[in-house]
Structure formats: structure tokens, C-alpha cells
């Protein structure tokens, strides 16, 4: 998918950087941090840290049950966060926002609850070759248990999904199509609306892994038409430990509970229970309350900056990074051209293992990621044991790309 070229206000990156305390840090004396690993987890602005700190300093209590000022405040803050997240992705109702631990747990929730209630031996589930392990393993577990068939949309040499192979697979009448909105390795932004429309044409349910899309460009579930959307707070300026599953209401209502315990019940007897309503049916036990508050502050922060502007900024940075990296002899960049991707660049350098690249870059304060990025099958396909990955967010600058490039030249010199 090509990100629409909307007129967006240019970000005031120096002002944004001032919001992120960690970006002021020197990783060792005289070496400023250059954080190029936001695809793994983003840094957190003062506004998010402050909201969580305020919560613990003045409103901390368990939610939904207590009848005292703190419990009322904590409940109101937790539910207000749900409302904010709901508006952020254009959900019809906040009750369709289930708080989970992260994207992985959200996908597991669908696999365990919807999957076990709906999939039988021989049923087809379509995934893609560019999935993160979190959207592979839950389905593999179910395939072992239920003997369902997993089919994979192939990735073409340009790093894009092969939609012809997808069309062929749809003839097998899949029950579910689950795919990543944006690859965490290739950076490819998949044509989600089209994939969903085609899936719905054959009666399949759709699940979108939005871990890399929701933080980086505007995602509206109504426009997308997705039946399920999973994402994590920590990749979008929020805390770790909280994520979201959005689901179509009728599907969520018909699904059995995932985890059992407190808060997900209406009534419990020694041998039976009745389910609570949405969204509580899927939120067993004391949830991550401060983290929900932090996530609410994070979506406020991102909205105040503007997702369109963030996407535009990342597009500029990634285009510049591709241009600069491709000029380095021996560097091979993995993934599609800038117009098809978000702010992720995975690459290799001839004769140098990605772990060594990362280690040497770290001496210059540059944080990138090296490895298979939880997408081993994609690396196997390209016959690569590992890649180095630099990823960008709203706070990154072209100067940081220049530092990256200079350090890669150092690596080359070192390795001769």
C-alpha cells in the first residue's frame, strides 16, 4: 500500500525529542544515544511517564469493585483509557476494545477462543510468509490440536505479498485470513483493505496484526473492515504490559471466555459460572491499570502530534536512509522500495555478521536490532541467518541516519 500523500504539518522534531527524556541520555560519556530500534519498542514521552506516575501517586486502587474515592478514580481512569483507544482506531464502541498484555496475547485470545469454537479438522487458515512468530505459532498450536490446514500467501522478490497466490488460496474456502498490516522486517505495508475485502468475499473472518501499523499511520477499523485487530501499547509510545484486541461485536459476543477468574464473571458457583459482558468477559483478573492509563496518555500524545504527520515524517526518513545505505558498497537492503514501506530498513553487509554490525554501532551509541526479528520463516525463505534492522519513529532525524551510515563505514574499515 502506498501511504496517501496528505498535506501534513512537518513535525517539529526537536520539540518532540524534548518530550522524550531518554533521548537526552548519553550512553557513555560524550556519546549521545541514537535510538533506531522503535520497531522492537518505542521510547516513552514525559506525558506518558507522568500520567502513570500521577496514577500511582494519587489514584492507585483496584478497579470495578471498590466503593471508595480511589477505586472510583482508578475505574474512571481505566475506562477512560479504553474510550481513548477506541476513538483512536475508530471503533464503533469501547466495549469492542479488550485490554490484553500485548499483540501476542490478543492473537492467542482469538486462536484459543474463536479458533477452538469455530475451527474443525480440515478447515483452512490463511497466513502469510512475512508473519511475526506471534501470528504463526498460535495457529500452529491449533493446527496440532485440531488438524486445521495452514496456508501461506507468498512474498515476492520485491518483498511484497503475492496477491495472485492469495487469490488462488482463497479458492480453498478459508475460515480465517490472519496477516500483518506492516512487516516488522521488510517494512512492507500490506494492502489490508483489499486483502480483507477479498477474504470477506469468500466468507472468511479476518485478523490484522497491527503491531507495526497502529503506532505509525492512521488506522481506522471501520474503513479497514477488519474483524479483529491486535496491537501493543509499547510500540506506540506507551508502556509494556498492555495491548489491545479489537473485535467485531457479534464475534466477540459469541466467543467463549479465554482466561477464567475474577472480573470476567457475573456469578460463580462451586461448579459453574456465568460470563460477564464485553469487554470484561475477556479481562480476567486485575488488569494492568497504570499501563492502561499510560496507553491512554500515549494515544493522546500521538493524536496531538498527528498520525498523518508521523507517517509523512517516517516516509521522509526511510527514503533518505534507503538512499544513503544503498550507496555503501556491500550493503544489501531487504524489502520493497520506500513507497511501499514504513520506517523499517533491514540490511546485511557483505562479510560481516549482523550481530557484529550491531555491536560496533553500539560503540557509537547507535541502537539497532540484529537477528531474525521473530520472523525466522521469512529469513529462511531468503536464506539469511540474520539481518540488521534500523527502524524510525517520530523522534528520529536525518542526522541520525547520517550517524548510522558513518558507523557502517567504520564497520567496513574494521572488517577490511
Amino acid at each position: 500500500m502506498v501511504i496517501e500523500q496528505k498535506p501534513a504539518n512537518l513535525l517539529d522534531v526537536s520539540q518532540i525529542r524534548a518530550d522524550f527524556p531518554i533521548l537526552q541520555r548519553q550512553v557513555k560519556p560524550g556519546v549521545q544515544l541514537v535510538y533506531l530500534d522503535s520497531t522492537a519498542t518505542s521510547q516513552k514521552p514525559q506525558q506518558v511517564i507522568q500520567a502513570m506516575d500521577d496514577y500511582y501517586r494519587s489514584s492507585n486502587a483496584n478497579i470495578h469493585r471498590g466503593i471508595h474515592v480511589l477505586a472510583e478514580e482508578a475505574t474512571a481512569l481505566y475506562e477512560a483509557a479504553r474510550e481513548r483507544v477506541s476513538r483512536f482506531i475508530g471503533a464503533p464502541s469501547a466495549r469492542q476494545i479488550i485490554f490484553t498484555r500485548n499483540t501476542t496475547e490478543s492473537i492467542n485470545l482469538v486462536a484459543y477462543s474463536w479458533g477452538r469454537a469455530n475451527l474443525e479438522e480440515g478447515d483452512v487458515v490463511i497466513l502469510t510468509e512475512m508473519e511475526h512468530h506471534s501470528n504463526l505459532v498460535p495457529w500452529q498450536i491449533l493446527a496440532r490440536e485440531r488438524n486445521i490446514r495452514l496456508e501461506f500467501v507468498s512474498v515476492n522478490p520485491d518483498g511484497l505479498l503475492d496477491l495472485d497466490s492469495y487469490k488462488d488460496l482463497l479458492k480453498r474456502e478459508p475460515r480465517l485470513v490472519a496477516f500483518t498490516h506492516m512487516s516488522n522486517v521488510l517494512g512492507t505495508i500490506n494492502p489490508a483493505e483489499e486483502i480483507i475485502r477479498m477474504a470477506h468475499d469468500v466468507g472468511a473472518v479476518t485478523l490484522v496484526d497491527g503491531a507495526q501499523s497502529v503506532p505509525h499511520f492512521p488506522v481506522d477499523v471501520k474503513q479497514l473492515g477488519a474483524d479483529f485487530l491486535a496491537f501493543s501499547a509499547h510500540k506506540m509510545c506507551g508502556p509494556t504490559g498492555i495491548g489491545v484486541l479489537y473485535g467485531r461485536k457479534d464475534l466477540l459476543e459469541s466467543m467463549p471466555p479465554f482466561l477464567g477468574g475474577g472480573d470476567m464473571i457475573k456469578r460463580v458457583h462451586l461448579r459453574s459460572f456465568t460470563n460477564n459482558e464485553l469487554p470484561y468477559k475477556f479481562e480476567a483478573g486485575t488488569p494492568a491499570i497504570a499501563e492502561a492509563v499510560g496507553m491512554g496518555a500515549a494515544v493522546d500524545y500521538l493524536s496531538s502530534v498527528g498520525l498523518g504527520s508521523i507517517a509523512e515524517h517516517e516516509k521522509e526518513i526511510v527514503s533518505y536512509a534507503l538512499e544513503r545505505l544503498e550507496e555503501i558498497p556491500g550493503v544489501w537492503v531487504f524489502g520493497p522500495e520506500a513507497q511501499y514501506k514504513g520506517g523499517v530498513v533491514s540490511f546485511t553487509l557483505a562479510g560481516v555478521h549482523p550481530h557484529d554490525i550491531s555491536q560496533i554501532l553500539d560503540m557509537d551509541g547507535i541502537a539497532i536490532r540484529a537477528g531474525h526479528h521473530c520472523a525466522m520463516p521469512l529469513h529462511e525463505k531468503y536464506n539469511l541467518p540474520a539481518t540488521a534492522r534500523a527502524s524510525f519513529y517520530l523522534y528520529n532525524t536525518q542526522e541520525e541516519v547520517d550517524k548510522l551510515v558513518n558507523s557502517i563505514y567504520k564497520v567496513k574499515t574494521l572488517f577490511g
Partner: protein
Amino acid sequence: MDDLYRELIIERYKNPQYRGRLDPHDISFEDENPLCGDHIRIELRVDQDDRVTDALFDGHGCAISQASADLLLESIQGKTLEDVKALTKDDILEMLGLELGPVRLKCALLSLKVLKAGVYGLGEANDDLVE
């Protein structure tokens, strides 16, 4: 004493005017509030014009849940089922004369949720009915 326990609420809790069972009845529904363990059952009789001729509730729970049920049933005597469907959260809060936080709001709205689920003939009550 705080506003939450106004005389009206204590009075209705101690001496409800519309507590009991109707046998036979035309409409009945029951549900509970998992937060406090409040339980409300409502039974209605309606005439040919779909007007409520009798309405009683039964159950147990906190003063707010029980008083709100009593006040709600008083307010619907002689009303049509369409009038009942049109009732909202604000009507209940006005009857109670209270502003409530999110936890206690569930107690106050349980009776309306039960009443509307019954009138709509739903299998299960849900919070959409009272928003």
C-alpha cells in the same frame, strides 16, 4: 451523611413500594451486577394497549440498586412499553437525584437494564441498553 444516602434512597430501600412477585405476569427478566452482587428480578403485567398495569421487582443488593428499582417501577405505572424503551441513564439519575461514579452507576442502572431487556424480549441484558 453524604448525598448518596439521601432520605429518599434510605426510605425506599427500607420500605419499597413495588417489591414483590406477580403471578401471572406478561414480562419478566432478571440479572445481576457482578460488582456488588446486586440481583434484580422484574415482573410486569401489560394491557391490550401495551400499557404497564402492574410492575414489581424482587431481589437483593445495595440501597442504591434496590431504591432505584423501586423508583423506576413507580415511574412506569401506566406507561406504554414504548415509553419504557425510551428511558435512559439520565432518567434514573434524575429520579435518584444523584451523580455517581462508574462503579456505583452500575448499581443504579441494574434495574433499568433488567426492565429494558425484558421489554425488548432479549436473551441477555447488556450495558448498551442503559447508555
